[in-house]
């Protein structure tokens, strides 16, 4: 049975792909009702994933065929069905199914309906392929594949210039990461025996112990560089907030729950390699911490509900990297488990929050600026309740899913501070900064929740001070996709069941995961059930592990930080009051820095974008006025000579040139024949 369940893993990417194919190219009926084949494909893939999850073992893999075969090198289409992969797979397919169901309601009436679902199917294909791959080249293939799907989905409403800009930015920033990934692969290529780049070989102790240290450090750094792009970490996080230009289900699925976790997955997968480079691990932890703190600090002042959630995603991904970076010494096993556990729980509650935000947006006629609505708890009761569950989980409040996973990460950081010999104090500092970030997280979540759902009721109207004039522009330019998903109905009503049921399901899961953890708590560690699944990961036994029990102190501090944040959020935002405005005035520089996102985009524009543009213009200029002239000048030399020496033959007639060249050939041949 187990063998059968593992062998059918190849169906997991295939089924969504078939769904996408039917949605895009199928008969007219499936194109009109394109959500049906895609939801069915992803749903079935989820069932197969569950089977694989039950049967997963570190050694299990499925060989499907060979893909790119060249003289010295073979890329097998081979899938690894271990614990890490199947946990990711179940999460990805489950969340995708619910998001697709939600989108069937949300995208109703959009002219690009079938394109949307075809792309969603294609995305799930790429994402499942990415986590199933057992080979670095194949991982790279799907790694870029998810990037392309993300590009096409961010730019889904292609008539909007902002969407076009965001899509391009996302793709290019991701390409910069891919560049590092590609170099890492080439480097592995030169050191791997038999050019074998499968996980079995590259991550094995035998391989790693014979590889020179600088190569391991280099490869680890390059892989981490790639991960910072996909998982939106400093310095390459800038694309993710802009990616919110895509339809909200896309933000929920790709830019919160699944694709952005690919970098975390890659580093978790490569942890056997990373433990040979503790310096890189420290860098991972520091980067994660800095990203988490920075983006949380930005999130506290944003007024666009989706942007708050986007920065929150960046921040939570930073948390996962902090955990992975803490995997020094015998914390290694705990670090991987903590990071993947948080990745898993985060996917549920963040997808939930985004979909709830989408539901708000749907009800508000595409308005997402929190200044323009408020007090929606009566009008949108289900959305409000489910958002509350997601928010509490994000804030890390007992006993929801987020509490346990955040606690694990803090535990890993705290342990690393004791274990690490050289950098213990750094991990200690990161631990306290992580706690502070937890406080900020709870605060901005509470702020978003109370501002949207509490206080006196307020619906958006056209004469709001914050109402963007963009709408009129779009109409003037004949943008035929204005109000693109055709919300023809009146605003202010709860979303239809096809949208609220996924919300309820995700909220239920968020609670359920907490309850499952609670079952084994506090004896033997809160996430034991989950940990056992992840421990069935390739080369996991190769990592060092030790006993790390539940730490009451950490749990207490974490909860305290969460409650303090929520309390502050309630105090400032539950009722309209002047305190936030006063605070903003009193800490004006800080407030404005946060509001303007610390001007990072502008900074990149100055140090990267503009220099490249200038260089490009310089090249263009050089080409016209230097290279061309130089070559033409050389070409004129014979003409000048000709004018003075061979003017008779230089008559400018093409025929004589041709004749001349033919004559030359003949002459040379004659010379040859004579000798």
């Amino acid at each position, binding site marked *: 049975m187990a063998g059968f369940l593992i062998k059918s893993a190849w169906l997991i990417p295939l089924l969504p792909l078939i769904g996408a194919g039917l949605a895009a190219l199928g008969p007219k009926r499936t194109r009109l009702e394109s959500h049906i084949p895609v939801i069915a494909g992803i749903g079935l893939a989820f069932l197969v994933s569950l089977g694989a999850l039950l049967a997963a073992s570190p050694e299990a893999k499925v060989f499907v065929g*060979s*893909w*790119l*075969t*060249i*003289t*010295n090198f073979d890329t097998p289409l081979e899938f690894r069905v271990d614990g890490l992969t199947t946990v990711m797979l179940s999460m990805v397919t489950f969340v995708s199914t619910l998001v697709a169901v939600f989108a069937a309601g949300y995208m109703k009436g959009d002219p690009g309906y079938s394109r949307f679902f075809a792309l969603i199917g294609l995305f799930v294909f790429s994402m499942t392929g990415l986590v199933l791959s057992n080979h670095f080249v194949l991982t*790279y*293939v*799907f790694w*870029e594949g998810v990037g*392309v799907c993300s590009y096409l989905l961010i730019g889904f409403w*292609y*008539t909007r*210039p902002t*969407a*076009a800009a965001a*899509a*391009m930015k996302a*793709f*290019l920033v991701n*390409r*910069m990461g891919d*560049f590092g990934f*590609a*170099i890492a692969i*080439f*480097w592995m*290529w*030169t*050191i791997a025996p*038999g050019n074998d780049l499968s996980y079995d070989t590259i991550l094995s102790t035998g391989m790693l112990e*014979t*590889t*020179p240290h600088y*190569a391991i450090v280099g490869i680890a750094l390059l892989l981490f560089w790639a991960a910072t792009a996909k998982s939106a970490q400093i310095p390459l996080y800038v694309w993710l907030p802009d990616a919110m230009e895509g339809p909200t289900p896309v933000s929920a699925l790709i830019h919160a729950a699944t694709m952005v976790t690919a970098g975390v997955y890659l580093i978790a997968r490569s942890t056997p390699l990373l433990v040979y480079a503790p310096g890189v691990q420290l860098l991972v932890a520091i980067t994660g911490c800095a990203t988490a703190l920075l983006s949380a600090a930005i999130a506290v002042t944003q007024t666009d509900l989706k942007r708050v959630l986007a920065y929150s995603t960046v921040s939570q991904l930073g948390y996962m990297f902090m955990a992975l970076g803490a995997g020094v010494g015998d914390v290694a096993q705990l670090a991987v488990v903590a990071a993947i556990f948080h990745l898993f729980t985060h996917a549920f509650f963040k997808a939930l929050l985004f979909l709830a935000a989408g539901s708000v947006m749907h009800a508000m006629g595409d308005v997402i600026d929190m200044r323009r609505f408020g007090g929606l708890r009566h009008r949108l009761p289900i959305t409000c309740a489910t958002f509350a569950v997601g928010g509490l989980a994000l804030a890390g409040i007992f006993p929801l899913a987020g509490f346990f996973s955040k606690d694990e990460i803090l535990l890993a950081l705290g342990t690393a501070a004791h274990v690490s010999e050289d950098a213990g104090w750094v991990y200690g500092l990161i631990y306290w900064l992580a706690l502070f970030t937890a406080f900020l997280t709870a605060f901005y979540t509470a702020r978003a929740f109370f501002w949207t759902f509490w206080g006196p009721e307020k619906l958006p109207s056209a004469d709001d001070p914050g109402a963007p004039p963009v709408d009129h522009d*779009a109409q003037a*330019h*004949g*943008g*035929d*996709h204005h109000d693109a998903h055709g919300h023809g109905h009146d605003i202010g009503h709860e979303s239809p069941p096809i949208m609220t049921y996924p919300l309820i399901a995700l909220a239920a899961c968020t609670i359920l995961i907490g309850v499952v953890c609670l079952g084994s708590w506090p004896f033997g560690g809160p996430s034991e059930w989950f940990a056992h699944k992840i421990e069935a990961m390739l080369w996991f036994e190769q990592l060092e592990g030790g006993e790390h029990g539940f730490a009451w102190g950490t749990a207490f501090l974490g909860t305290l930080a969460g409650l303090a944040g929520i309390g502050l959020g309630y105090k400032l935002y539950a009722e309209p009051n002047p305190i936030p405005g006063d605070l903003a005035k009193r800490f004006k520089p800080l407030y404005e820095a946060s509001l303007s996102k610390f001007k990072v985009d502008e900074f990149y524009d100055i140090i990267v974008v503009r220099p*490249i*543009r200038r260089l*490009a213009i310089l*090249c*263009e200029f050089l080409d016209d006025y230097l290279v061309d002239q*130089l*070559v*033409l000048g050389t*070409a004129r030399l014979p003409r000048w000579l000709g004018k003075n020496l061979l003017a008779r033959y230089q008559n400018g007639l093409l025929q004589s*040139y*041709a004749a001349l*060249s033919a004559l*030359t*050939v003949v002459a*040379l*041949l004659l010379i*040859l*024949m004579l000798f």
Partner: protein
Amino acid sequence: MATLLVITILIPLIAGLATALAPGLDRDQARKIALGAVVVTLGLSLVLLVGFRPEIRGPQFAFQTLDGHYGWAWIAKTDIRVAFGLDGLSLWLFVLTSLLMITAVCSSWESVSDRAPQYYGFLLALQTGLLGLFASLDVVLFYVFFEFTLIPLFFLIGLWGGPKRKKAAVTFFLYTLAGSLLTLLGVISLVAVNYLYSRGHVLTFSIPELTSGLAVVQWDDWYKTNSWTSPQVLIFLLLFAGFAIKVPMFPFHTWLPLAHVEAPTAGSIVLAGVLLKVGTYGLMRFNLAMTPLGSAALFPLIATLAVAGVIYGALAALAQTDVKRLVAYSSVSHMGFIVLGIFAMNATGLDGAVIQQINHGLTTGALFACVGMIYDRYHTRQLADLGGLWSRLPVLALFLMLAAMGSAAVPLLCGFTGEFPILAGAFETSPRSAVLAATGMILGAAYLLWMLRKLLFGPLKEPHGHTTDATNGHHPAVAPVGWYEIAGLSPLMILIVLIGVYPRPFLNQSKLAVVDLVETLPQSAVASAPARLDPARARSLDQNDRTPVLSASVATAPAASLGDRR
């Protein structure tokens, strides 16, 4: 099959002559004859493709005399022969030529009305030139076709081109002619070296015989590469002159944007799709195969030029405001990749280069066809004048998107299957140049996405006089995408996806030719570079045979490697 190959090569020429010279043909008849001829040629090329046996060494479909010579005697006394045949290096280029000609004819369907019979005549003559070139097994025959291709293209640009067509045509012609004369000198020197120093003074012009003969000539100086005047280095440079201009390699590329902008769409398709490959094909066939030591000695120079071309071409593309110039500069960048792959001097890079030639032909051919479709409708190619065409021409948007993504080497589309091995092979030989060239991946995505964003995304923006505004009935509506445009581009799109998704059969056909070519290369030069990278690697090399395929075939190779005979 030997006859079939000759027929395939000659059909376009015959049809072309008939079209151009027949009295009283109108445009419709001419284009139908042309389409018929290219379809038949493609059909026959596909028959050859199916009949090709990848497991056989050396040229196939070649007429062979009893004493083992290829082809029929042409100039008897010197043994210059008319010999055609295809091997793994030329097979795909041959098929690509036949395929792109369909796109070229289809893209001219409506846009060419002036002197159409002559236009199609030149186009078909150009096809024979290219097919003959790739199938030539004799250096003189190769050279004749090499020069011959210039003539039809010269007239296509000069007569049917844009406003500056005269200047473009003359620049193009003189530029390439200058280079090819040096190449001729190089080719003749090769023949002379082989004649003077081979055992028994063999005077041969046959490409296969020269390749094997030159590897074992009894002349000590031939194997020295210590100075610029060493024979192999010198001959390499002579050969290189013509091919580098054709490719075109930085800094000899300036004729290309000019020629492309002025050329009619079909001219651009063939020029970028096939004619540039004449350069890389020559580099493989002559420079790499016949002067391998020269190639190894000059690797630093060639790699520098190639990498400079990759980056410089991409940056220049980024600065363009005319979309056709943008695509032209993208060719400079992408051809740099191919040259880098060829001179990586290992099977990985060469495999990538062979398939990348095809990929580049498909994607760039498609991009030029799309640009032509836009120009036919709006009579502008300025990015600033256009926008949001996705809403107006969704089929064009799909084509353009696929071609651009394929060109940007997105996995599961064709570009990746070439670019990735090229960079991997180059990394083995010279990590620095591979890393620098890989930045071209980012820049390449940058200008292609920029182009897509300008042309397809955003609110619809069309030049004045091309709106379908109901209030103004004077202006003709923008023509929807026609059947001939779909017919011309669909095969390219299918292949762009197919090569990306299932590259094996495509790589398989050229595998043996690549292995044979790599065998003749100086292995020490290749092996030394990665050792520099990683001292501890020597150990792992001993434990694991890294190139099982190669070593196996060395044992059975009929033409032994350099070291054995010397």
